[in-house]
């Protein structure tokens, strides 16, 4: 896709700011802000340097960053203008531009090739033929007409090959060439970017040392990014002629689906913490610090909330919201907006049900910390409770908050899959790992077995969650004074 075209489309379109878009970008801004704070404080720099001394943590961080950039690209939405109706001269002159109902994101534009081209139904990864048998009318040399059941050539994939059966040698030559070209392309673009990046880095290091300037961190960042670039290059070049992960029942490219699912996973993994943290932190710290009646009331509230089985509470809440949304179709201009509100509702519900853990944890911490001598010293000066909580206790429990948040991420991503499977997850019009699994679960019993949808979802999800888990471990080891250190 020509970058100029892309900019033109973006210029002419109607911007749509979904709520979750705003939240994701907000989180991104908060992340950047946190980074600045960390870089400024020598204490923090030292801690984070410890995190990024570990190879796996660096690799995981890079993987998550790449996933996040996909999600962020997928979080700039707009509606393209419809072509003016030429048969009505009046309309052409009016300033009123009409926009398509379809809401697209920048990622959609970048993946236009994958998005728009549908096959008829299932096709295997890198296949040129459909995975289903269809009656094909064949005119035999003697003029007879015979109807055979065979799998026909795909509409979109394999167009680089001449019609008719593709011989194995031609096929494999093409695949190999594309892989080679993709690798070279990926490496070249990586090389250029790395060169610019390193130059910038060297310049910046003169200004301020970063936790990333550790040799392990630098080396493994480059290695991981290099591999990802090669992978993207290969996928891009293969996608010109094939469906890398095949197509699903309606013929849609599976690679496109998993890439779109990344945003949903990240929203589910991150946005609920925006609800969890304020409630959990405020209630937990207050309960521990003030004790007495405040503590009793807060304890009552969180015992009550945690008494309700999580899934059922989520189910009840989602069902209620669903009924509400169904009864008010007039609230939403497009299906995407509706799905988005439902996603947001799901996030809020997940947040409302999962704050009890951190509240309990922080209650204990603040109960302990209020007896610390530096808190006593502050109280002896008559410092107000609010200020003690804000200036003494909150900063000291911050590592715990961060660790909980990072660990919660993978739990939430996994929960999304289960909830979507039960039918109380994201809107079926959206893309998510859970919906993909749900749609794919009967496919294993087909003949021939359709394994690729599930496999693609599996690979992407495991890589994402594994990266999050590994990073969470590294962060915990470095930040949590209570955790054991490998000797």
């Amino acid at each position, binding site marked *: 896709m020509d970058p100029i075209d892309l900019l033109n489309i973006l210029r002419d379109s109607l911007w749509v700011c979904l709520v979750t878009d705003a939240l994701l970008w907000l989180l991104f801004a908060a992340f950047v802000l946190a980074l600045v704070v960390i870089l400024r404080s*020598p*204490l923090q720099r030292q801690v984070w340097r410890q995190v990024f*001394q570990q190879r796996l943590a660096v690799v995981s961080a890079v993987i998550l960053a790449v996933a996040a950039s996909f999600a962020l690209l997928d979080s700039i939405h707009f509606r393209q203008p419809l072509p003016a109706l030429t048969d009505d001269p009046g309309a052409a002159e009016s300033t009123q531009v009409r926009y398509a109902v379809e809401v697209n994101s920048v990622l959609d534009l970048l993946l236009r090739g994958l998005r728009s081209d549908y096959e008829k139904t299932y096709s295997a990864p890198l296949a040129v033929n459909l995975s289903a048998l269809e009656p094909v009318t064949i005119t035999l040399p003697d003029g007879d007409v015979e109807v055979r059941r065979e799998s026909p050539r795909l509409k979109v994939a394999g167009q680089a090959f001449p019609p008719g059966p593709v011989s194995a040698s031609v096929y494999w030559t093409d695949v190999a060439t594309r892989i080679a070209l993709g690798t070279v392309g990926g490496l070249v673009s990586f090389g250029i970017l790395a060169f610019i990046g390193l130059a910038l880095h060297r310049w910046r290091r003169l200004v301020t040392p970063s936790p990333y300037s*550790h*040799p*392990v961190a630098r080396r493994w960042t480059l290695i991981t990014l290099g591999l990802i670039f090669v992978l993207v290059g290969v996928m891009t070049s293969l996608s010109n002629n094939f469906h890398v992960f095949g197509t699903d029942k309606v013929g849609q490219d599976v690679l496109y689906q998993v890439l779109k699912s990344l945003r949903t996973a990240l929203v589910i993994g991150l946005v609920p913490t925006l609800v969890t943290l304020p409630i959990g932190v405020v209630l937990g710290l207050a309960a521990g610090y003030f004790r*007495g*009646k405040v503590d*009793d*009331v807060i*304890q*009552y509230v969180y015992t009550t909330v945690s008494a309700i089985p999580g899934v059922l509470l989520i189910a009840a809440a989602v069902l209620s919201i669903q009924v509400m949304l169904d009864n008010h179709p007039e609230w939403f201009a497009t299906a995407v907006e509706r799905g988005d509100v439902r996603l947001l509702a799901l996030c809020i519900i997940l947040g409302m049900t999962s704050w009890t853990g951190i509240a309990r944890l922080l209650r204990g911490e603040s109960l302990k910390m209020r007896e*610390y*001598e*530096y808190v*006593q*010293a*502050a*109280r*002896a*000066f*008559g*410092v*107000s409770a609010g*200020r003690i909580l804000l*200036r*003494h206790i909150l*900063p*000291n429990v911050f590592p715990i908050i961060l660790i909980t948040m990072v660990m919660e991420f993978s739990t939430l991503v996994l929960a999304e899959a289960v909830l979507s499977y039960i039918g109380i997850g994201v809107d079926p019009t959206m893309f998510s790992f859970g919906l993909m699994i749900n749609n794919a679960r009967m496919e294993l019993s087909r003949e021939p077995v359709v394994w690729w949808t599930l496999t693609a979802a599996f690979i992407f999800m495991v890589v994402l969650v594994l990266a999050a888990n590994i990073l969470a471990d590294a962060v915990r080891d470095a930040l949590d004074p209570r955790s054991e250190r490998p*000797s």
Partner: protein
Amino acid sequence: MSTQPLLQVRDLSLAFARQDAQGNTTLTDALSNIQFDLHAGETLALLGESGCGKSLTSLAMMRLLPPNARYQSGRLLLKTEDPRRPEDLLRVSEARMRQIRGHRMAMIFQEPATSLNPVMRIGEQIAEVIRLHRGLDQQSTQREVRILLDQVGLPDPDKAAAAYPFELSGGMKQRAMIAMALAGDPQILLADEPTTALDVTLQAQILDLIQSLQQQRQMGVLLITHDLAVVASRAERVAVMYAGQIVESGAVSDVLHNPAHPYTRALLAALPERAGHGESLLQLPGRVPSLGHWPMTCRFAPRCADQEPHCLMESPPQVVMPSEQTISVVPHQVLCWRAGDEAMRAYGDSGSVNRRRTFAESAVLEVRDLQVGYESSHGNWPWPLSHWFGDKAIQKPVVDGVSLQLKAGETLALVGESGCGKTTIARAILGLQPLSGGEIVLDGAPIAGQGVRPQAGWRRNVQMVFQDPFASLDPRQRIRTILAEGPRALGLAPATTTDAALCALLERVGLAADALDRYPHEFSGGQRQRIAIARALAVNPAVLICDEPTSALDVSVQAQILNLLLDLQAETGMAYLFITHNFGVVRYLADRVAVMQAGRIVESGSTRDIFEQPQQTYTKALLASVPVIR
């Protein structure tokens, strides 16, 4: 004393391995050429400040080191039946070592509260050792457990055997711990600060117990301690450790009366017990260097007042000093270039700067009939149910009718065993603890009591220095923020929080101005305590409550802090309420003493009267248990 030692430690060196990010292993020296003998029926004291490697030595002898420790050299020769073929513990198998642990060598630890398995009955924990090492049957094991518990002086052995550790008091736990160590019938007992965590009366009892058991069983005892007075009263020989080395060793009488190493001399001179009232204590500059920062040559040289150029160039030699004892079997050895040099500065009789001290006649702080009771929960009911169904709040008095008076410029020491309510009084004066009765008057204005609403800003007149220098500073705030907290919260003039003002404050407590932008973790314990004092000073209080401000510090650092406190008092005329259990400090610092027991003051008077003519039996008992250096 038999000629063949039970254990000979020869040239023991130890290092910690650390892996850096590149995967290279670096070794940091932790113990260097430790060498001593342990004889039957004899107590060898291993003396040193924290971080000098004394506990590490004992763990090394048991081969119980953390996994990253590496033996560099040495032999640990344990006496066997055949006197010519001792067993080298560093070369026996782990299985053989397990037979030796608990059976030939046993150990008691500092914290009886955490060193016993909390969910196992005392009897079972002792029986485990007997079964393991002596293979007795069930019945004789039980009998043996009872005998042991009786030997260590537990009043009801059967009850103690059936008890869990939490059901015993601290002293009883330590007795049980000793019973456990004796259960394998060891010849060698390693006691790692066995009484540091205990009250002074218990300390004496436990040390008596160890001594009598040693006599009965003719054990060799290695007593690890930081307390010179304990060494003086309990050991025959002593080895002084500094930065992983034994710098001086010999008979206690030789070492303590004729200290030859500058470090030993400094330690003795830093003791408040030895200084006259109001005199300056000797202070060693700096602190014990931390692991990995040891000088290559003489490790004490950077802090040594008698340092010569040569000391910084070559490692000092081992010198044998002449002994006072007529028939000496124990050589008095010193690791120093200037050992025996008469020209060395004489410590101990350092200049007695008598500080000018003036007392006002009127009391700046007056506590009248103070009563504090903790509400022992509301019966586990949550509010509002506690209101309706809960048991009536039970008031357990912790402080029961205490009255005190403190004059400006005066130091009142509040002494007593742990749990007697000393700290609760401090908390009540600071307004951190509601009173259940009585009244507190500060500078003429009541600040706490029935229906008292103190005037705004009263808090600037009373401040506190806490016990634990590591917990009393917020680790996430820079020193600047920490120091400015008080003046800001009390709304003092902005001029008190300018950098210039804060630097002046730091200077008063002897710290450099560059400390302002640093974080607490960059400072040592003594420096942190200085910062904590500066924080209190920032609001210029009339009364400073010091809650065991030196009990977490080493002797040499303690001297620095005590000197500082005295200087500040002379300078500002602050009154100190000094809470402590260290009688040496009391004698040195206090004008008056109040002795507390179970929430009441049992005796009070001038320091001299209390020390020389105690009236109450409790005071007498307390003073009698204080170990003193003869």
